[in-house]
């Protein structure tokens, strides 16, 4: 017999996320009994067809996992290759890698802030229609995004699937004069980013906090991009090679999804909120001051406010890129020579959406024997679902449309990049 107090809210196609997903929420007797993010992104089997490919092909191939954050995949891959073959990339080549990563953060964060996330707070279906009432803010953020893409293009060759990254460094390094106009764009972008942070901080935010276990890289001197130890807000502090001892992908009961979990505890959170909370002291003083000015503490547990944190990371990325360009001297060699050998290599870098962890087993000739790639969005999935249940609970007495919208917004808080999530599978409809 149907229970009259039971209702199911479905969103069949999540808009403004990168990839295909859907949401099922089941409410019974005034409480949320299940909240499920269903992913129907068809599997593309990267880890399978990487077997037998050469290490030199890896950066070009893994870029194709995600058109929004190809640099994240390229960077995790080249660091894993170098880790396996005992190569260290330092000096200006290392700086250039940080520089191109800043470009990806800028274009990806700017896209999410203005095109995908801000419309939720201001009541528009998209950034383009939002431009009718907020034209200047939208145009400014597009200018900011364009600066990030310009940086990707000059250092990487193109915005999507850059061609210049290789194991050991780059195919060709830019000249100082090639970077000079980029610096001009970035200086303007930095000012626009500061304005954007002040703008998004005025949005109406739901009063909602969660006690997350934040997980991010932490580096002795820098806000993390390519290197660091893997740390958490509880007690994790490990080498990236030990990821598999602390974390696992587990089959959940009645579900076909692989959920990433801290083995000893459960759900955790990666991405801007986690990086910020664990590395606030590594941000430049000007960015820390801006955070305080807009009312943000050194830790932010409200996922809706991730839009402010993305804004602060945008300011940081512009600052950092400007600093790197100012100190840039073209190195003599575009890449450190690589000699393959048998072994296992690990790479873990901070994609705009959080840590992107790779492990490759190589044969003596540099061919890949086994590949394992853990993208950020699959790591956040259990946390997104926990947030969904908690958020829905706060609006249960509201009409379905309100609940549906709030749930969609909750998912978009994470800027989920579903195309990336090679381990996302379709969830079963019901879970107990």
């Amino acid at each position, binding site marked *: 017999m149907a229970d009259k107090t039971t209702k199911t809210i479905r969103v069949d196609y999540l808009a403004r996320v990168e990839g295909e997903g859907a949401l099922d929420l089941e409410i019974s007797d005034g409480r949320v009994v299940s909240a499920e993010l269903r992913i129907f992104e068809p*599997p593309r089997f990267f880890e399978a067809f990487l077997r037998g490919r050469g290490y030199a092909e890896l950066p070009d*191939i893994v870029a194709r996992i*995600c058109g929004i954050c190809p640099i994240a995949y390229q960077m995790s891959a080249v660091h894993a290759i170098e880790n396996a073959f005992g190569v260290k990339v330092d000096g200006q080549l290392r700086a250039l890698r940080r520089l191109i990563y800043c470009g990806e953060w800028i274009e990806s964060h700017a896209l999410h802030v203005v095109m995908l996330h801000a419309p939720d707070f201001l009541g528009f279906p998209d950034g383009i229609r939002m431009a009718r009432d907020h034209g200047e803010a939208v145009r400014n953020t597009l200018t900011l995004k364009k600066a990030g*893409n310009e940086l990707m293009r000059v250092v990487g*060759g193109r915005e999507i*699937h850059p061609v210049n990254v290789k194991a050991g460094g780059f*195919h060709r390094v830019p000249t100082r004069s090639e970077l000079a106009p980029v610096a001009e764009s970035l200086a303007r972008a930095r000012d626009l980013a500061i304005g954007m942070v002040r703008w998004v901080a005025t949005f109406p935010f739901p009063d909602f906090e969660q006690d997350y276990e934040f997980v991010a890289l932490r580096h002795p001197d820098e806000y993390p991009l390519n290197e660091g130890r893997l740390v958490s807000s509880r007690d994790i502090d490990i080498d990236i090679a030990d990821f598999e001892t602390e974390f696992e992908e587990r089959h959940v009961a009645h579900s076909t999804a692989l959920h990433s979990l801290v083995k000893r505890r459960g759900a955790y959170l990666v991405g801007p909120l986690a990086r910020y909370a664990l590395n606030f002291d590594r941000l430049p003083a000007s960015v820390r001051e801006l955070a305080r000015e807009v009312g943000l503490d050194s830790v932010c547990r409200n996922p809706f406010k991730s839009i402010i944190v993305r804004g602060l990371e945008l300011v940081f990325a512009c600052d950092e890129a400007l600093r790197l360009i100012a100190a840039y001297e073209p190195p003599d060699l575009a890449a450190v020579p690589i000699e393959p050998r048998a072994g296992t290599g690990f790479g873990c870098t901070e994609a705009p959406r959080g840590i992107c962890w790779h492990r490759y087993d190589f044969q003596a000739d540099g061919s890949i024997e086994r590949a394992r790639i853990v993208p950020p969005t699959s790591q956040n999935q259990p946390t997104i679902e926990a947030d969904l249940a908690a958020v829905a609970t706060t609006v249960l007495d509201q009409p379905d449309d309100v609940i549906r919208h709030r749930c969609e917004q909750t998912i978009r808080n994470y800027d989920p990049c579903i195309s990336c999530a090679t381990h996302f599978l379709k969830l079963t409809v019901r879970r107990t």
Partner: protein
Amino acid sequence: MKAQRPRLAVWKFASCDGCQLSLLDCEDELLTLAGAIEIANFPEASSLILDGPYDLSLVEGSITTAHDAERIQMVRQQSKFLVTIGACATAGGIQALRNFADVDDYIAAVYASPKYISTLATSTPISAHIAVDYELRGCPINKAQLIEVISAYLAGRKPSIAAHSVCIECKQRGAVCVMVQGTPCLGPVTHAGCGAICPSFRRGCYGCYGPMETPNTAALACEWQVLGATPRDIARVFSTFNAAAEAFRKESKAHGG
């Protein structure tokens, strides 16, 4: 009387999202474009989904599931003019490597519970399923070419997209041939469109725009061997983002791929 703006839909199948992102990457043209065309169905960018039919549909991605094979028929029915964008949609993408392998082995390699995975044994281009009005190549597509295709549609003319090889683009940009400097390059057999980016970064083209018309891949493969490439190198380079494109598949196979 102001004519109604043509209605645009953007569809996604198996892909990385990069080609539809190209539309949002048109930072300078985006708002102008939105004035000339009504964005009626573009889920990656908007939660407002208007019902079809649509005047112009852009289709990204390849067909890899039974559900998608049905969905593309529905997309065709609702679309007056349908353009496929990118290597996945025009050639099956890198996920078409499964076409030459055992898909069950692929599933087992990635997923612990293979029985939950529903996928076809092949990844096929959109044109294998429905009639396509125009194909735009590239992994990813070139956003200037995308704007050209949309502008041409709005003006009721044919898009001006060159069909020659990347070699011509190298000459146009004044780049020095990398092959004469000893670097193997797929430029001579690859469809133009990127603007010869790789040679300008001192590396060989890796064929992400797929084969040009009537490419002489066998002659190029000989040149590659002269430059020291092994059969395995050649098999691999023809087996990437356009692996299922016939000319590339044939050449890869000829070298053990």
